[in-house]
């Protein structure tokens, strides 16, 4: 069956649907024109029709209506493609299921081994290798998304601050590798080390250039599993991405030289070659940059088509790649820079869920292709026709590649270290050299060699394969032990705290200032100037006005922390059943709307608005998806979140990983909230019992506690005691004594708002604290309407152990009475005032006159 199919089989799929994986060695006539067509989607149908004709159209005239018919040819191509994708991914599934194995052997190596097995099976069935990785499939359908993902996830600042070093390694290092390998092999050939081979100097250089480049796919696959420090990672990673430009140029130049023949090469041709290098590399980068800007501009105005908005990123990214290929510029550089340049703008321009989509789809595509690439690297090996053994050639190649990589890295680092502020350490150099993995790019280039011009093409292909296996499997496996053994500085596990971020910002500005004062033009100076330019022009053009304001670094960090806190908080509440109403359509709370309304400051409007519950059944999923927390630009919701911040959450650092998309899932967090709650409750009990309940403490609680009671009434109180009941039931009295003492008086004031109490999500209450007067009314108003439809179970009310007030109290109150008060002071006056305007019917809480004293 496979054999039959394979004769007309070419897989093409659009980038979005991931990639085709199968391709016949024996390309038939139809294949070649398929290869030229750009869009895979159409293509799939085309070929379907072609073969479909064979299936039913062109045969015997039918005599009767067939009920069903067997139309394998009709679907064979896409079917095989899909099957191969499935098989490759299943391999990955099996591999990942055995963690103890992947801990020792990197995934990429295992995938190649799986490829061997699969290839063996095909070989056993067909006696010929039907499926191999062809350059077309690899370069057009498998590679782009891997690289796009790499570019998109690139930590830009880190990359650009090490740009110099990366370029040196990528350009000079690669040239050195290519030249030294080619010349040495040629020398050995002359010395007679490999017997009788028909390879000239130019062909050796061609071979050297195709195998010189460190492969981005293989390198990332291995390095993401050993968590080396950032600088080392970015060096290897950046080098592997950028040296493609060099490889492609070298390859093309030498390929042309080989065609020309040695005699025709003169100085002019060589100079042309050098010029072509710059044109190809810079042209490719520039093209990617332009496409990146294009994407950014486009996402500026895709507000109305948010569902497909992520698609633009992929389509334009792919177009950047193809355009560069069309202009014979470096396609990889183009797509890398496209991703790097647009990441910042699209992330701010697009809706948050679109950004998430882009990230996930990017990972799915990249990880999927990577898997397929490795599996097919393995499959390709099981093919008798390509195996030509020449011990001298193969072993010498391996040896030279290994040695020259070391020499190149050490020499270049030695030079670089004279200019670097923080020198690259010796061990890092070892790892860098050792991490010079070759991969599918080299193999793809090798198979592109013209067998007519290069007699020993098969030898080169199989040597390339061996080099790939050697580096990916052997060096890949030994990388981790080596890193451990050499005690390479790992990526710091600890994450930056908020204050550190602020501090880093201060440092940055200070360094710039010092450079300004001392009149030097240094790295910081350049960066600062670029930032200003960027801020002034690029952002203005490329960013939505609304997105612009949230772009400040520190603010973003802070916002992220808040968001995360709030989300985990809500999630936890939901888990405990107290937030069921949120999933209930009718009780859907549209924060955005509410808060938006508040700014209008018109009471009747709000009431009118609440009479119209938001229908939440909609195709536009973003509408309902975490609407409340998502509304980042809303200052109010910001305040809401701010109150959640009981501790500066640690933000996860930017670390590139293709197979893991880090959502910060910190299980300890929830645990911690709970523990702190318990602790604080105990504390407040103790202080109350000993009669030293600090007066400040109580006054602080007045407002908060009334709020807290307001929605839930006694039940909240009860829940607290219930909750603590297990360990310290007797404490609960003291607890409420200290906590609620002061609130007793004010409680009835708010009684009018208690109607909807049951359905309110108490978990949200804490946020409302200082601003509560402003925020609650509309919300409650809606709640009131809905109260008939949703009421949380009794259990839900009781089982909410960390009520808002607790959380609220933990944070600032425990730490500093003074700072808390100033906290509240900061927000209180405004809120108070608005409150007064807003809510004539319920008497506003007594203005706390003592507040000022507290503050002092």
């Amino acid at each position, binding site marked *: 069956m496979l054999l039959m199919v394979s004769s007309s089989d070419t897989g093409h799929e659009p980038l979005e649907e991931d990639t085709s994986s199968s391709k016949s060695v024996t390309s038939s006539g139809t294949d070649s024109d398929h290869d030229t067509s750009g869009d895979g989607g159409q293509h799939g149908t085309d070929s379907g029709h072609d073969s479909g004709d064979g299936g039913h159209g062109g045969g015997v005239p039918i005599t009767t209506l067939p009920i069903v018919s067997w139309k394998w040819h009709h679907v064979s191509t896409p079917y095989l493609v899909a099957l191969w994708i499935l098989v490759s991914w299943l391999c990955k599934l099996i591999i990942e299921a055995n963690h103890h194995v992947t801990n020792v052997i990197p995934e990429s190596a295992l995938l190649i081994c799986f490829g061997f097995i699969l290839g063996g099976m095909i070989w056993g069935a067909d006696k010929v290798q039907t499926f191999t990785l062809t350059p077309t499939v690899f370069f057009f359908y498998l590679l782009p998304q891997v690289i796009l993902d790499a570019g998109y996830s690139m930590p830009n600042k880190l990359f650009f601050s090490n740009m110099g070093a990366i370029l040196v390694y990528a350009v000079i290092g690669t040239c050195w590798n290519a030249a030294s390998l080619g010349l040495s092999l040629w020398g050995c050939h002359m010395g007679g080390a490999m017997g009788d081979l028909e390879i000239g100097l130019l062909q050796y250089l061609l071979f050297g250039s195709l195998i010189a480049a460190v492969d981005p796919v293989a390198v990332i696959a291995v390095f993401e599993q050993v968590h080396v420090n950032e600088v080392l990672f970015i060096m290897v990673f950046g080098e592997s991405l950028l040296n493609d430009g060099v490889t492609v140029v070298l390859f093309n130049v030498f390929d042309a030289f080989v065609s020309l023949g040695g005699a025709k090469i003169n100085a002019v041709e060589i100079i042309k070659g050098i010029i072509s290098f710059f044109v190809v590399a810079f042209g490719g980068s520039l093209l990617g940059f332009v496409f990146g800007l294009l994407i950014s501009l486009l996402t500026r105005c895709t507000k109305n088509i948010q569902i497909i908005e992520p698609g633009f990123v992929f389509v334009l990214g792919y177009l950047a790649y193809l355009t560069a290929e069309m202009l014979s510029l470096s396609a990889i550089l183009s797509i890398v820079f496209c991703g790097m340049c647009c990441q910042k703008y699209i992330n701010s321009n697009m809706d948050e869920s679109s950004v998430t989509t882009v990230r996930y789809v990017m990972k799915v595509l990249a990880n999927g292709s990577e898997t397929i690439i490795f599996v097919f690297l393995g499959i390709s090996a099981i093919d008798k026709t390509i195996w030509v053994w020449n011990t001298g050639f193969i072993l010498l190649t391996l040896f030279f590649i290994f040695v020259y990589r070391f020499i190149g890295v050490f020499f270049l680092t030695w030079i670089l270290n004279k200019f670097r502020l923080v020198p690259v350490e010796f061990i890092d150099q070892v790892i860098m050299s050792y991490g010079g993995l070759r991969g599918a790019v080299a193999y793809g280039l090798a198979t592109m060699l013209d067998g007519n011009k290069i007699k020993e093409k098969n030898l080169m292909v199989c040597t390339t394969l061996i080099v790939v296996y050697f580096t990916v499997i052997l060096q890949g496996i030994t990388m981790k032990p080596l890193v451990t053994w050499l005690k390479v500085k790992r990526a710091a596990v600890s994450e930056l705290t*908020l204050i550190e971020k602020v501090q880093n910002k201060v440092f940055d500005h200070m360094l710039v200032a010092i450079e300004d004062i*001392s009149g030097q033009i240094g790295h910081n100076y350049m960066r600062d100037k670029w930032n200003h330019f960027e801020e002034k022009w690029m952002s203005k053009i490329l960013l939505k006005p609304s997105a612009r304001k949230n772009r400040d670094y520190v603010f973003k960090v802070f916002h992220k922390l808040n968001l995360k806190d709030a989300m985990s908080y809500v999630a936890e509440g939901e888990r405990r059943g107290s937030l069921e109403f949120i999933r209930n359509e009718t009780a859907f709370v549209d924060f955005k709307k509410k808060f938006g309304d508040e700014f209008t400051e018109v009471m009747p409007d709000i009431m009118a608005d609440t009479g119209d519950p938001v229908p939440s059944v909609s195709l536009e999923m973003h509408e309902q998806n975490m609407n409340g927390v998502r509304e980042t630009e809303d200052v109010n919701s910001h305040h809401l979140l701010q109150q959640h911040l009981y501790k500066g959450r640690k933000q996860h650092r930017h670390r590139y990983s293709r197979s893991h998309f880090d959502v910060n899932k910190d299980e300890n967090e929830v645990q911690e909230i709970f523990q702190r709650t318990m602790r604080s409750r105990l504390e407040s009990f103790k202080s109350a019992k000993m009669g030293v309940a600090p007066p400040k403490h109580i006054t602080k609680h007045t407002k908060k506690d009334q709020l807290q009671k307001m929605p839930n009434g006694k039940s909240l109180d009860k829940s607290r005691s219930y909750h603590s009941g297990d360990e310290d039931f007797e404490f609960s009295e003291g607890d409420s004594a200290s906590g609620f003492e002061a609130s007793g008086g004010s409680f009835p004031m708010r009684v009018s708002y208690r109607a909807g109490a049951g359905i309110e999500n108490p978990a949200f209450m804490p946020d409302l604290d200082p601003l509560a007067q402003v925020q609650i009314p509309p919300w409650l108003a809606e709640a009131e309407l809905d109260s008939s439809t949703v009421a949380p179970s009794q259990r839900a009310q009781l089982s909410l152990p960390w009520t808002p007030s607790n959380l609220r109290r933990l944070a600032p109150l425990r730490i500093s009475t003074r700072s808390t008060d100033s906290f509240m002071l*900061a927000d209180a006056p405004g809120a108070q005032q608005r409150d007064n305007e807003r809510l004539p019917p319920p008497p506003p809480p007594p203005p706390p006159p003592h507040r000022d004293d507290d503050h002092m």
Partner: protein
Amino acid sequence: MGALQSLPGQPQYADLAEKTGFSYDQIGVLHKRFNQLSHNEETLRRDHFNDIPDLACNPIRSQIIEAFFDRRNFRQNGEGTVDEIGFEQFLVVMSHFKPPSLHITDDQREKIRKEKLRFIFNMHDTDNDGTITLEEYRHVVEELLSLSETLEKNTAKSIADAAMLEVASISMGHMEPDEFYEGITFEHFLKVSTQKTTLKYYIE
């Protein structure tokens, strides 16, 4: 404050080089710059700094300039501020931004690190009471964010507050309800800055 009496020649440079660890060349460059900034006067005043065009868009400009006139940064155990500084003081302040030489022991490195951190700490601790209080820190963050007009003051405030809370929870662990977090002391500051802060000041 002892402004330099004459244009310093090599011997005077030797003195300064010993004090600050700069090389003669670096001192030469900086001296040229000093003269340029001060318009060949012997002392620098705040106005001179304010005139540097590139500095104009630096959000924390005032703090940095202030640091140059802060006696605490002169390595002489002084306090308070001065109105003008001579070349020597300029150089001493600048020397805080010198990269540590590569061949020093860990102890020395640690000492240098501490000195640098102290410099920043002093920059934030405007009233020199040994703690960065919430007010002071808010001021820092506000200035830091002052460039982006879109951010409200409240945001800066809450960022500062959040960061402060964080420091408190890191450095104090748990606190009693009536306890009061004064502000970041230098020890706490060291503690929270241990990790990854970009302490790579350099000059040259």
